[in-house]
Each structure stands twice: as C-alpha cells, then as structure tokens.
C-alpha cells in the first residue's frame, strides 16, 4: 500500500519562490498519511501542506536542500553532523513520498548516497588508517562546497548592475538616417586582369595598336602634362631632374617626344639657339594671337 512515486524533473524555468524562511510553526497534526495521523515530524520540519510543494520547489535539487539543512543549524559544510542531516533529509523525502508529491529522481539518489556514507562511517576502522583512504564524507562535502560556490556565484551575478534593470543604454533619435554608401573596394589584381583582358581583346580586333612605352615613360608623360597645367611656358630644361641620373633624364626625354607626337605639348623656340620652352598644347588656343576657329563656338 505504498504511495505511488512519480519521478519527474522539476520545472526549473518556473518563477522562483523566495527561499523559505525557517519554519517556526507550533506543533499540530497536519496530515493523515496511510490512515495514520502525521504528528511525528520534528517541529522544525513542519510545513503547512499547501506550502510544502512550494517549499520544495524553492530548492534547486538535493544539494540545495542539504545546504539548507546544514545552514539552518549555522553549521559549516565541512562540519556536517551527518547522522542528523541524513535523518532530516530522509524525513523530507518520506514526507514528499507520503504526500505523493512529484519528486525529482535526484533526491532519491542523494538519499541512497547519504545512507551509504552513513553505513561506511559506522564501520569499525583499524587504528592505523591508510592515509589514502578518504573520509566517506569527502566526496559529498566536495560536491556541497562546489555547488555552494556556484550558488553564491549566481547570487553575485544577479547582483551585478544589469541592463534594463539597473542601468539603461542611453539613445537619441536619428531622424533622417541617410544611407551612406561605401565606395566599392578594388584589388590591384582585379585591375591588372581587366587590363590584360582588354589588351587581349583589342589585339584580337586589331582596332588599335597598343603602344609599348614602358610605364615609367607613361607616368612621366602625365607628370609633365600636369606640370604644364597653368598654361604658361616652362623652360625645357626645368622638366629634367638631374638627380634622377642618366636613366631618369632619358625617360623624361622620351616622354617629351611622345607628348609632342601625341600633340599634347608644344615646344617653342623664339630664335635659333635660344632656350627651348614648353607649354601644354591646349594653352595655344587660349592666346589671342593664335585663334583657333574650332574653339570659338
């Protein structure tokens, strides 16, 4: 005629109840279990029946319940009066079973563990104890301590100033949030491949003969044209940078010749043997004495 025992995992996601205050009720019969009034419970175990479930739900498992029993007596985990704590623990378990409360399996496992420790501690021991042999309580104490650390860590975590409870991110409204476009990235490789392809294609169609001046000459051509941007005459000699050495001078010279050939610059000499001057070909049209009919319109 044993009450049926249901083993379930308690619903931990349910809203927690505040930890139970040590019960201080006066003794009175509170339940009839299996036809017998339950009056044998220790005074400090008494809990109104409707509150018992709530009380048990407040525990996060057998370790938590054990810690409660130990702390209630102002004892240290390292100082467990094992017999007494085991007795109290068993009372709770029996009570829960008698009242057919749903009980997590872990509580029963702990009950078995406590019983085992108790029996081991009751065994007579030899006077010369092997140092390697552990106190039977050691593993339990270790687990209780470890659990208690994290129980406290959880409390500390809960006490940290938390967003949306203790502090709030400050934010202001940004009304016209314009879309900012980032410029697309280009790799050197992409550009080089594009050049290779366009050259290959142009040779295929033979539309245009791509010149073969080295890049140093092309770069110098750009520099020279850009330096003549003002439109005025520049001394031919000033285009050369002697510090670049013979090679640099040669590059500049080829660049100037190429620019003349492409009609990008003019070289002017006022009279034989006079200094040479250079200007951008485009500047020619801007001078009044050499009007270009095309630029008039």
């Amino acid at each position, binding site marked *: 005629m044993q009450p049926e025992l249901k083993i379930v*995992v308690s*619903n*931990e*996601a*349910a*809203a*927690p109840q505040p930890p139970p205050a040590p019960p201080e009720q006066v003794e009175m019969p509170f339940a009839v279990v299996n036809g017998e009034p339950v009056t044998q419970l220790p005074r400090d175990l008494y809990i109104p029946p409707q509150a018992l479930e709530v009380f048990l739900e407040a525990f*996060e*498992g*057998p*370790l938590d319940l054990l810690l409660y029993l130990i702390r209630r007596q102002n004892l*240290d985990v*390292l*100082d467990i*009066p*094992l*017999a007494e704590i085991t007795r109290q623990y068993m009372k709770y378990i029996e009570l829960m079973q008698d009242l057919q409360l749903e009980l*997590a399996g*872990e509580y029963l496992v*702990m009950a078995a563990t406590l019983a085992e420790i*108790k029996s081991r*501690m*009751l065994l007579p*021991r030899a*006077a010369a*104890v092997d*140092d390697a042999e*552990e*106190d039977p*309580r*050691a*593993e339990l*104490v*270790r*687990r209780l*301590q*470890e*659990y*208690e*650390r*994290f129980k406290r*860590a*959880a*409390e*500390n*975590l*809960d006490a*940290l*100033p*938390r*967003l*949306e*409870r*203790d*502090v*709030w*991110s*400050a*934010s*202001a409204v940004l009304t016209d949030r314009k879309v900012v476009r980032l410029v697309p990235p280009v790799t050197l490789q992409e550009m080089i491949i594009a050049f290779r392809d366009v050259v290959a294609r142009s040779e295929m169609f033979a539309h245009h003969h791509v010149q073969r001046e080295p890049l140093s000459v092309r770069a110098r051509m750009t520099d020279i044209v850009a330096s003549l941007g003002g439109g005025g005459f520049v001394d031919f000699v000033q285009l050369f940078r002697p510090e670049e050495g013979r090679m640099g001078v040669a590059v500049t010279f080829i660049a100037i010749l190429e620019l003349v050939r492409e009609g990008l610059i003019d070289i002017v000499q006022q009279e034989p043997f006079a200094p040479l001057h250079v200007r951008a070909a485009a500047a020619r049209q801007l001078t009044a004495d050499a009007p270009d009919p095309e630029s008039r319109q």
Partner: protein
Amino acid sequence: MSDAYRRNVVEAALLAAGRSLQLSDLAQVFTLEERPSDAQLLATLEELAALYADRALELAHTASGWRVQVRSDYATQIARLWPERPARYSRALLETLALIAYRQPITRGEIEQVRGVAVNPNIIKTLLERNWIRVIGTRDVPGRPEVLGTTAEFLDYFGLQKLEQLPPLAELRALAEFNLQLELADPSTAQLADGTSDG
C-alpha cells in the same frame, strides 16, 4: 578640428547607436582628414565621462566597446517608464549561467554534475535566445556533447569588459583543514581526506 566638435560627434554617435561602439566604429564616423587616433578618441571619451559627472549618465566600457548609460542610482525612477517589471531570472537559470560563465567551455552534463539536478532544456534555450551563451563546439567524447560558452553580449548585459571581471568564486577548503567533529566514526578518521580540494 576642435576638441568640442570631436566630443559632440562621439557623443552623438554613441547615443544614435544606443549600444556599445568600438573605437573603430567611432573613428569611422569621421572623414579621413578628421579621423582621430585611438589615443585621441580615448581622450575624447574621458572628456565625455567628465561631462557626465554631475548628470544621470555615465560612460561604460563593456566587452563590445563604449556606451552611454543611465546610472543605476536613477534605476527606481527610470524603471517607472515601463509598467511591467524587469525580467527576473530563476535561480536555476542564474546558476546555470554562472557555471557556463565561470567554467566555460562546459557541457550540460558537467553543469548537471555540479548542480546535482538535470538542466531544464528551456533554460539553455532561453540563454541561447538571449544571446548570452553559444555553442562553441562539441566535446570529443561519446555522444559528442555540445560545449557551451558565454558571449560578448552576456558581458555587455552585465556591464563587464571581460570574464576576469566577474566576482571571484569562493575558495574551496579541504575537509582536512577543518576541525572535524565526527559524531559517528572514531577519532582517527578526523585526519583523513587530504586532497579533496579541487581548487
């Protein structure tokens, strides 16, 4: 570019974002010519913090960067803006979260070992949904259980820059260090149980 201008832009950026910004995010708000160095930005942030000294605001440095926040001294007043109370988390959730935070990478089985009860799957689900924890891999043991760790968002939420700023864990003491009062066994057992501390 004046310091005041830079400070204004940084403040506006932080408030427009409404969340933590990295120094690189802040730098990006400036044009290339105006762009301050990290050292300059830090100086600007310091200025901003000083500006908030007698206000309800403060500058917080968390895992994902810097943010402006309302001080906790004003929490009671500000909480009244929202009729519903802020979410309270169950002890089970907080204990699970604490284990993941302090013991990561950790499996569910390992959490259950310490807590002595099964981990409710809803708790893990809630923590994952809040983006406080994530699966960082699997352990190479039979069943290949998932290994959990915390995220930068977890640190942000609790106002921390890094895990090392979590409150320290209580120390474990060895059973032998304690003056055991054994009520059942004979006194010789009192000298046992060395090395029960696992640090």
